[in-house]
Every structure is written in structure tokens, then in C-alpha cells.
């Protein structure tokens, strides 16, 4: 923090605490007044606690940045939600329908759903993400170029600069990672022993389900952050193709996250992140918040992907032909094809359930001709391909960093590039492998087994090419932190990937499905394919963004604490899963003898959290008093490193031309891009 704002930070912290207390007290009072009961059946009075947290966050941000940007947006969102809900309530009252439910959450479900939708619009209006479009629609002219407010405040309001937006995304993603991780820590503690110790089973179910979805949203924002930050720089562009749309895509994710988290306070839900009906038709109000939250977040994903594809197609600098793009750009494009199209299907699936909940339209009610399996097809048509959305950017980062650190070209560039597209496209054809035991049409199982197994081929190409890149490469001696995370990512993703084929063959999957073996499989793939590369990219591009380099020693602590703990966590998951531990259970049969394994997993989880806290501390320390690094820290050939850090506002002020191959390390005299400016 800068000197000038450090007093602000202290005040902000104070306000945070005061806000937490005040908000909670007010909410408890309200709750007691309206229901005549002091608590809500949970250990803590969760709704009040959450409202308190919201007040606290807003108060904190208010002290930091004033009535501006996200503060304004959040306040408007609350107002909009109330307005929308009150409107529906009034309408219902006028029509003589039951219009309120004092016993539970004051408003009816339809009022809540409408409310949060209106709230989303209000947020966007309040934060200022749609002001320009509104003016355009009225035929007014808006300025072409954007200027940001100076200082760190620009990160809290609408900025059209892709670098600012990238950092906003990344920061939000880390925040959600912490929240989702915190949920995991809470329910893991409950799982440490058999029996229910301190959570009610409803709360366990809610936390577990929210953990899944919050983490997934966190990933979607995280990859959007990295892609937003890097892709324009890598293709030699000044910004994304549609900067306003870019800002919109980011800002719509904030109300989405708020709505998603609010489900914790509004009764929770108990379906897991998959939300299968008919269970999700019967679940409490929180279910609808989950559906709406994810639906809104989906738009962030769709529009961001659209922007990215257009940018890559239209904004490449001179000479940046397809096969000379940095490999990460290939990965980002492949990812975006999936997000752009498949996301609509999960949106539709969730809308159908919402309509069944709100209007009784029986899409999934088998007594009225509905079909619960249909939901699963629609859901997985998105949710399988999306797992490749999670990992392709990460695998791109691995392919991007390996050559830099082993000082050797990426082995088989074209193959690696095409394998991203291959994975993305084949990924569209495999969704039903999540439904082998679901009772879907039997004849579908074998074809889906084959298509699923096929994904191993392009993924294998990536692994073999990485190994070939490493082979005889001169890996830099001191193994800098980003490189550690790259190597960790390869190993962990390998474990995750190799545990995939046993799920893909139908008969073995019948045993594995819905067990902790699967839980282990996907934590490995997601950590290896996303979390590790994500941390690698933060360590690697932090100097680019800030001109300061993260502390190496703390970085190594982070890595060496997180990796073994994580391996223990997931390998033990697979172990107990094979032996009969089901997913999504808050309590398990002590007779199965999993006690020690479970305890070890919980401890491992806390060690992971400790490692991540070290990482946060590292960021704090570096921003405050980090070692300056404005040059080409990693001796990379990539264009963004050929200009000084932090990156100038319009990236490359000078002529930019691609004249060579991106990864020609070890070829004396070769150049990748020519930027007519002074050398760094």
C-alpha cells in the first residue's frame, strides 16, 4: 500500500469489524422480530452472519475507495434486489396470490428470483458498466479512448484496459478461491471423524455443494484473468477487440458471485454442484440462488470468450500468423470455443429447473411426462467440456513456460497447438461418461466410452512433448518458483489424467462413480491443470504487472508445503474411494475404518491452506516492499517481455512485427518480434 492510503487501510479494517458486528446484530434483530425465533437452526445464525459480512465488506471498501465503483454497485444491487422483490410481492398481493413467507425468508421464491435479477442490472448500472451502451442507444457519442482514475482505485471501478480487467479477474478469482477453500476447510474438519460434530447435515450439504460451484466460478474467473491479461500482449494488440464488453463480462461476475453465495443464507441446497432434478426441484430457496448465480456467471464466460476469439482473429500484429502465435494463445482460443457455445446448455438446463420450481412446468417430473435424465444430458453437455476450459489455459501456461526455463524450443509446437483444439473438439463428444450409471439409454454407453478414451491421445501428445522439451534441456539451476509450479502441475495433472481412463471404461466406472475416487481424480486434474499453472503464472507475470518480483523464498515455501500435502489429500481420497467411500456424505460408517485416512486428509487440507496464506503474505510483502524487476526477468522471447515492466497503458507504443519463431531458444541471433523501441 502506498503511504497516502495506509491510514485509509487502518480505518477500513476498523470499519470492516464494526460493519460485521452491526450488520449481524441488525440481521439478528430483524430475524427475531419477524419470526419470533432467535436462531435459525444452524450453529450460527447464518443469514445474519452473511448479511453482516456483506455490510462489513462494503464498509471496508467504502473506507478504502469511497462511494465509487464496486461499493456503489453493491449498494445498488441490494437496493435493486429489494425493489424487484417488493414489486413482485405487491403484484402477487394484488393478484390475490400468497405473497410472503415470514417463517422462512420473508419474500416468496419468485420475488427473490426476480429481485436478484433486477439487483444484477442495478449493480451493472451502479458500477457504471453499461453507461456507455446506454448512451449509445440514445444516440449520444461516447469517447473512443479511456482514461483510468489514478492509483489503485482504478481496480475497484470500471476500467476498459485489458490489463486492469485481467488483474480484477485474477483478484476476484483468488477471493473466491479463498471462500471456496474456507468452505472446504470447514466441512473437511467435520469429516475428520465419523459422526456429526459441529455441522448440521444440511449445512454440510450446502457447504459441500457451494464449495464445488464457488471453486468452479473461481476457475472461470481465474482463466479469464490470465487470458485477458496475456492474450492482447502476446498477439501484439493494444487491447481486446471490445473493451466495453470486456469490462461488462468482468463486472457481471461480481453480482453473480454475490447471488451464488447468498444461497448459503437463504436455506442452502443439497444437490452438489450438479443440481440434478428432481432433488433440485424440492430443495430450499438457496437452490434458486445457485441456479440464478451460475446463470449470470455464465454470461460472463460467454461474452468473455466471444471477445477473446474476435481479438485473436482480428487483432494480431503484423506477421503474427497462426503458427507463430505463442502457444498460450492457441490454448486460450480453444478454451473460448467451448465457453462460447456450450455454456448456453447449462444455462438452459438451469432455467428449465427454475421454471419447474417457480411455475410448476414439469420438465423433469416423470409423473407428467418429464424426464430427469434430460437434465443430465444438457448439464453435462456443458459441464464436461468445461473441464477442458479449466485445464487448457493451464496446460498452455505449462507449454509457454517450459521452453523459457529449459532454454530449448517447445518440442513439436504445431502438435501441441493442434492438441489443444483436438481436446476441445473431442471434449464435446464425451459428456455422457458422467452418466454411465444413470439409467440413460444403454446403447449410448459404449460409444461414449470410446470417445472419452480418445481424449487421452491429444493429452498424451502434450505430455510427451513436454517431456521431450525437458529432455536435454538446460533447466535453470535454482529452479525459480514459477518453474516449480510448472513441474508440480505436470506431475499432478498426470495423476489426474491417468486416473481418467478407469472412469471411462463403463464397467469399472460402475464401481468408481460417485466415490471419493472420482473426487480424487478431479482434484488432481483441476489442481494440476489449473491451480498449479495459475500460481505459476502469477509468480511469472507478477513483475510484468507490477514491476516487482515476488519473494522467491516464500514462493518456495508455498510450493513445498502445498504440493506434498495436496498429493496426500488426493491420493488418500482415491484410496478410500476405491474401498467404498461415497461422495457427498457428511457422515460415514465408522465400521469402514477410514478414520485415520480422513484425519490425515483434513490435516493435509489445512496445510494447503497454510501454503496459500503464505502466498497471500508474499503478495502483501512484495507490493509493500518488493524487489524491483522491470526488465526481462526470465530472459523470455515472448513479446510482452521485450518492453519494460509494468506494461504501458497501450502495451506497445511502437511498431511491432513478428519476424521469427516464438521458441527458438538456443538458436543464436534469432528474433521473435521486432519492436522498434529502445532495448530493455
Amino acid at each position: 500500500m502506498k503511504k497516502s492510503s495506509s491510514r485509509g487501510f487502518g480505518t477500513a479494517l476498523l470499519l470492516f469489524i464494526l460493519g460485521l458486528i452491526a450488520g449481524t446484530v441488525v440481521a439478528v434483530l430483524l430475524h427475531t422480530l419477524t419470526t419470533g425465533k432467535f436462531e435459525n437452526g444452524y450453529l450460527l445464525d447464518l443469514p445474519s452472519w452473511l448479511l453482516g459480512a456483506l455490510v462489513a465488506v462494503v464498509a471496508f471498501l467504502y473506507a478504502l475507495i469511497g462511494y465509487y465503483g464496486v461499493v456503489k454497485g453493491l449498494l445498488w444491487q441490494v437496493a435493486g434486489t429489494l425493489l424487484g422483490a417488493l414489486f413482485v410481492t405487491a403484484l402477487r398481493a394484488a393478484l390475490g396470490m400468497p405473497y410472503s413467507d415470514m417463517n422462512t425468508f420473508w419474500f416468496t421464491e419468485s420475488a427473490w428470483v426476480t429481485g436478484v435479477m433486477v439487483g444484477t442490472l442495478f449493480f451493472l448500472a451502479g458500477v457504471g458498466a453499461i453507461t456507455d451502451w446506454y448512451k449509445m442507444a440514445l444516440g449520444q457519442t461516447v469517447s473512443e479512448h479511456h482514461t483510468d482514475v489514478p492509483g489503485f482505485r482504478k481496480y475497484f471501478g470500471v476500467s476498459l484496459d485489458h490489463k486492469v480487467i485481467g488483474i480484477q479477474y485474477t483478484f476476484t478469482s483468488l477471493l473466491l478461491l479463498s471462500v471456496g477453500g474456507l468452505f472446504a476447510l470447514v466441512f473437511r474438519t467435520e469429516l475428520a471423524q465419523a459422526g456429526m460434530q459441529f455441522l448440521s447435515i444440511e449445512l454440510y450439504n450446502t457447504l459441500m455443494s457451494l464449495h464445488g460451484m464457488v471453486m468452479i466460478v473461481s476457475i472461470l474467473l481465474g482463466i479469464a484473468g490470465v487470458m485477458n491479461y496475456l492474450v492482447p500482449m502476446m498477439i501484439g494488440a493494444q487491447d481486446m477487440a471490445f473493451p466495453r464488453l470486456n469490462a461488462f463480462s468482468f463486472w457481471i461476475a461480481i453480482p453473480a458471485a454475490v447471488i451464488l453465495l447468498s444461497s448459503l443464507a437463504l436455506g442452502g441446497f443439497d444437490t452438489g454442484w450438479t443440481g440434478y432434478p428432481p432433488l433440485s426441484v424440492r430443495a430450499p430457496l438457496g437452490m434458486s440462488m445457485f441456479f440464478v448465480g451460475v446463470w449470470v456467471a455464465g454470461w460472463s464466460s460467454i461474452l468473455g470468450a466471444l471477445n477473446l476469439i474476435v481479438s485473436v482473429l482480428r487483432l494480431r500484429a503484423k506477421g503474427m500468423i497462426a503458427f507463430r502465435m505463442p502457444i498460450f494463445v492457441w490454448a486460450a482460443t480453444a478454451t473460448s470455443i467451448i465457453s462460447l457455445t456450450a455454456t448456453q446448455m447449462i444455462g438452459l438446463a438451469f432455467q428449465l429447473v427454475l421454471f419447474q420450481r417457480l411455475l410448476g412446468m414439469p420438465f423433469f417430473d416423470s409423473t407428467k411426462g418429464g424426464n430427469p435424465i434430460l437434465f443430465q444430458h444438457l448439464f453435462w453437455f456443458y459441464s464436461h467440456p468445461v473441464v477442458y476450459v479449466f485445464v487448457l489455459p493451464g496446460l498452455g501456461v505449462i507449454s509457454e513456460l517450459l521452453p523459457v526455463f529449459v532454454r530449448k524450443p517447445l518440442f513439436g509446437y504445431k502438435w501441441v497447438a493442434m492438441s489443444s483444439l483436438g481436446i476441445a473438439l473431442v471434449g464435446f463428444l464425451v459428456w455422457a461418461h458422467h452418466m454411465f450409471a444413470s439409467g440413460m439409454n444403454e446403447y449410448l454407453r459404449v460409444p461414449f466410452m470410446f470417445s472419452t478414451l480418445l481424449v487421452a491421445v491429444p493429452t498424451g501428445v502434450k505430455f510427451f512433448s513436454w517431456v521431450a522439451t525437458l529432455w536435454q534441456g538446460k533447466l535453470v539451476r535454482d529452479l525459480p518458483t514459477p518453474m516449480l509450479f510448472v513441474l508440480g502441475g505436470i506431475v499432478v495433472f498426470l495423476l489426474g489424467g491417468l486416473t481418467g481412463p478407469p472412469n471411462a471404461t463403463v464397467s469399472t466406472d460402475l464401481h468408481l462413480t460417485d466415490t471419493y475416487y472420482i473426487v480424487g481424480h478431479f482434484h488432481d486434474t483441476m489442481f494440476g491443470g489449473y491451480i498449479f499453472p495459475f500460481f505459476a503464472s502469477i509468480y511469472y507475470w507478477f513483475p510484468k504487472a507490477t514491476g516487482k518480483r515476488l519473494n522467491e523464498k516464500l514462493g518456495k515455501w508455498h510450493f513445498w508445503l502445498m504440493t506434498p500435502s495436496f498429493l496426500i489429500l488426493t491420493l488418500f481420497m482415491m484410496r478410500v474411494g476405491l474401498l467404498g467411500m461415497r461422495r457427498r456424505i457428511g457422515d460415514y460408517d465408522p465400521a469402514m475404518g477410514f478414520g485415520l485416512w480422513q484425519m490425515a486428509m483434513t490435516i493435509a487440507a489445512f496445510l494447503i491452506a497454510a501454503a496459500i496464506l503464505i502466498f497471500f503474505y508474499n503478495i502483501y510483502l512484495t507490493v509493500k516492499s518488493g524487489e524491483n524487476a522491470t526488465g526481462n526477468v526470465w530472459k523470455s522471447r515472448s513479446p510482452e517481455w521485450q518492453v519494460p515492466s509494468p506494461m504501458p497503458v497501450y502495451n506497445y507504443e511502437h511498431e511491432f512485427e513478428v519476424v521469427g519463431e516464438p521458441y527458438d531458444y538456443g538458436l543464436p541471433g534469432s528474433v521473435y518480434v521486432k519492436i522498434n523501441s529502445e532495448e530493455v
Partner: protein
Amino acid sequence: MQKNVHHYVIMSVLVIVVTILTYWGLNVLGLMPVQASSQAVQIDWLFDIEVKLIAFFFALIMVPLCYSLVVFRQKEGDETDAEHIEGNTPLELTWTAIPLVIVIALGIIGADNLRQIKTVDPQAIEIKVIAQQWKWLFQYPEGFSSTKLYLPVNQQVDLKMQSQDVIHSFWVPEFRISQDVVPGSIEDYRITPNLLGNYKVRCNEMCGKNHAYMESDVLVVSQADYKTWVGTQALSAKATEMASAGKPDAGRGQTLYQESGCPACHSLDGSKGIGPTWKGLFQSQVKLTTGSSVLADDAYLTESIKLPQAKTVAGFSVNAMPNFSYLTDGQVADLVEFIKTIK
């Protein structure tokens, strides 16, 4: 390349060693629970192949990775780049083609394996399984039902499974197979137990609050024991039926209350659960969501059990209560009789 031959030799040896060690280690650890069905034997056979594959590919990636890390690492004081090698198309083709062949082979083996575990024995015993939040009920062809599943050893059974409410899944880890039970359709589950013992069916699909506790005993007994058990069960079922033929009976109602899973939602002591309490319900005025109220008489109670959606009690959600369509009229009458006794 010539000067590098020893690297490749060492690496290949290491790959083989690590593959064997990994596979051996996993086997010593023991990955699966006991095999209690002939299908389990088949499935474990396929799984074993996959473990071998995993061990091999794990070694194939990890060994050169670690080897490069140790052997080729930048030497002290060496600032130069590595040798400029861009790629090698034949090599890329090889490591595309070989995994392709492997996965196709795996797919064929997998399809065949699936066919084997689905082999149908026309002599199979058919048992009806009813899944509901959060319990299992097994109805035997001899006309009685049980909350425990007794199965004869070495005899294929065909479970005809149906769900009353949401999706559940029938899984006995020792049998290796799970199958979802989707409301609105009847799912087949064929298994041939081959090992005497006590196991548990564990619901393997998230089905709401008490999903974790949706477990029932599965007992695999000898064929003779099975016959005896079925005989006695059938007899006692007949006996109770004869004893009170025709008239509803609160005692039987109480048993049904337990067996059918009503306690999950309805308390007898006045406390509010997922559904309204039954205490003092009979002859009370029940407030409905429509705003009107209705007298809780025989007809209303019967309707509430048979068609739970018909009228919804204020403060509860319409779809919460499952359909109990499998209950006979006599059983519903028993339940109503029991409700009358809760004052």
C-alpha cells in the same frame, strides 16, 4: 545422437523398474474391497489392466522428467541455452499412434467386459427394490417385504428397482456395480453374489439431507438358508394378514411408519420436521397453502398419503413428500389408524 545412447538405455531401464515397482506397490497395498460377486471378478480384472497402464505411463512420464531434472540441469556457471531441437515428426506420430492403438484396444476390452457383466441368467430371482428418501425396501416375489436384502449365494438375482421421489443409486461396494434409480422408470440390476457375508447397500447418488445415512444391510447367505428365510418370512406375512384381515390396525401402521421412512419427516411428539407432525393431527383443522383449511378426517389423511400433492399444508413445500404409490389400500388404512392414535 550417438553420444546420448546411454541416456536412453538408462532411462528405459528406469521406466521398466519404476513401472514394476509402482504396480507391485499398489498391489501390496490392495486397492479394492473383497470381491463378493462374479461381476466383481470381471471388473477387477479390467481394473487391474488399467492399473498396469497407469503404472507404465506414470513411469514413462515421470522417469524422463526427473532424469532431465537431475542430469541435464544447467551446470554451474553455464549461461548458454540448450541445443536447438524443434521437434521430430516421426516421434510425434509414434506417440500419437501408440496411445491411439492402446485406447482402442482398451475400448474393445471394455465393451466386452461390459457385455460379460451384463450376462443374463433366465433363472434369476426377481426382487423388487423400492428406493425413497432415505431408505430401501425390498419386496420378494413370495409376497412379503423386508428392509434387509437377503440374497442366495451363486445365484443371479435381478433387482427391479424403482424410486418414489428423487434419484438414488444402488451400490454395494463389494459387488462393484452401482445403478441409479430414477423416478418414473424401472431399472434392472443383475448381480451374482459369490461370497457369503454381510455387506451394505449404500445409496450412491446425492438424494437430499440424509443421503449419507441411506444404507441397508445386504446379507449373502447359502441357498438353503435363503430358502428357509424366505419360507418363514412368507409365513409370518400371511399370518399377520390373516389375523386382522380386513380391519385396519394401528400396530401394523406403526411398523409401516418405521419401515416406510415416515419418521424422516413426520414426528410424533409435536416437533416440526420436513413435514408436519402427526401429534394431534386427527380431527384437527389443517391450514393449507391455498389459505383455506380442512378437517383432518379419514378421507383427508388417506388422500394425503396417496396423493401428497393434492393438498399442501401451509408452510411446507408441495413436492417434498414422496409418492407412496406402492402402499396398498390396506396399508394406508393401517397408517391412518396409527395416526389416529397420536394424540
